[in-house]
């Protein structure tokens, strides 16, 4: 064919168009994400881990423009390292969330990324912060990304205070599976990170191990 146009993904912005969730349980937090990165209609990475460490016991979940989100996470990672050296101990989760919020707010016109920050510190235990569009708010759980619209009803109905670690992990996996089934921009595998006072545990749940529902 003469004069073939270049493939669409070369000219489209790369978005993480995603489903991310973080939830606080009795003694820590669980973060979860899918693994699809899309550029227009193409999936450019089907196994990206969108849970990025900001510090040993503080992680963030990325959504929106992939480049913006990754850059914010890297910059805050550096700022937190410096900060924790200055204070001589591990940083608070609220400090990490504040640093993320400061960048999101300052560059809110130019950037389009939403990061959920979650972690464990000695003072307040497990905490989840949402930083959408430059606000900072602590919540018992937070969902974000394009797939989150489809699961608002599910998380509203199913979330209970004071769940155990295993119940929270199951809740996160169920939510991710439901969102990945309905959102075209979410898919692949599910990544889970569990943070409590004993440490940080990363887990991958492959596609065929995800929970299935009545119509599958």
């Amino acid at each position: 064919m003469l004069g073939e146009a270049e493939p669409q993904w070369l000219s489209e912005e790369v978005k993480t168009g995603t489903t991310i969730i973080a939830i606080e349980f009795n003694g820590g937090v669980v973060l979860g994400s899918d693994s699809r990165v899309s550029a227009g209609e193409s999936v450019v990475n089907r196994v990206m881990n969108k849970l990025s460490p900001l510090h040993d016991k503080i992680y963030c979940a990325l959504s929106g423009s992939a480049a913006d989100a990754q850059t914010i996470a890297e910059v805050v990672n550096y700022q937190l390292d410096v900060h924790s050296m200055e204070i001589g101990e591990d940083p608070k989760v609220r400090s990490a969330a504040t640093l993320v919020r400061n960048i999101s707010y300052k560059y809110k016109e130019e950037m389009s990324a939403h990061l959920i920050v979650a972690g464990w510190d000695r003072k307040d235990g497990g905490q989840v912060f949402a930083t959408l569009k430059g606000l900072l708010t602590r919540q018992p759980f937070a969902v974000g990304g394009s797939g989150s619209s489809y699961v608002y009803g599910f998380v509203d109905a199913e979330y209970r205070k004071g769940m155990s670690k295993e119940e929270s992990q199951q809740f996160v996996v169920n939510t991710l599976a439901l969102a990945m089934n309905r959102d075209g921009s979410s898919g692949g595998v599910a990544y889970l990170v569990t943070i409590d006072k004993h440490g940080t545990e990363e887990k991958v749940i492959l596609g065929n191990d995800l929970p299935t529902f009545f119509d599958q």
Partner: protein
Amino acid sequence: MEKHYTECKVKGVSTGTTILAAVFDGGVVIGSDSRASIGGEYVSSKTINKVIQVHDRIFCCIAGSLADAQAVTKTAKFHLSFHSVQMESPPLVIAAASVLKELCYNNKEELQAGFITAGWDKKKGPQVYVVALGGMLLSQPVTIGGSGSTYIYGYVDAKYKPNMTKEECQQFATNAIALAMGRDNVSGGVVHLVVITEKGVEHVVVPGDKLPKFNDE
């Protein structure tokens, strides 16, 4: 301060709504919220009933432009009653759904309405059909529609089970619509439910104070 009207993509009064229908063991439940709004800024009716009867055991729910939906259902009702006189028997649910589909497909340029049709007939028992915006007709065990439905896809996928009892299905429908009303600002009011079985038709209205509460309220 200047007030401006946000651009309304749906002309005129929109039902900006949440509608749902589900099959249970022996019947169907079809339900909706009760809010009609203009451009998402003004609630023009708090108690509109979006569940319309098109025949004795066949109901449909409308989403989209209210005017289009009312016009189409009125026409469909007429076609169906004529059809049932000709056939000398009550119409099949799929007949009702097909009438709506023909109207939607043939007028797809002008219309902006989608339908869920649910009912019971002697041939296939309880059924749910969805007629989408362009005129596609599909049969499903459970289906949701309207602007509020986005928020409950996850809940419906997780909680619907085939062959539930009537009470379980009523609770499922009430919960799902209440959750959608909690997140969608153009859905609200009361929950209207219609339960259709071989024996007959039962209307249930769940007022605001009797709606299920979820832990953030």
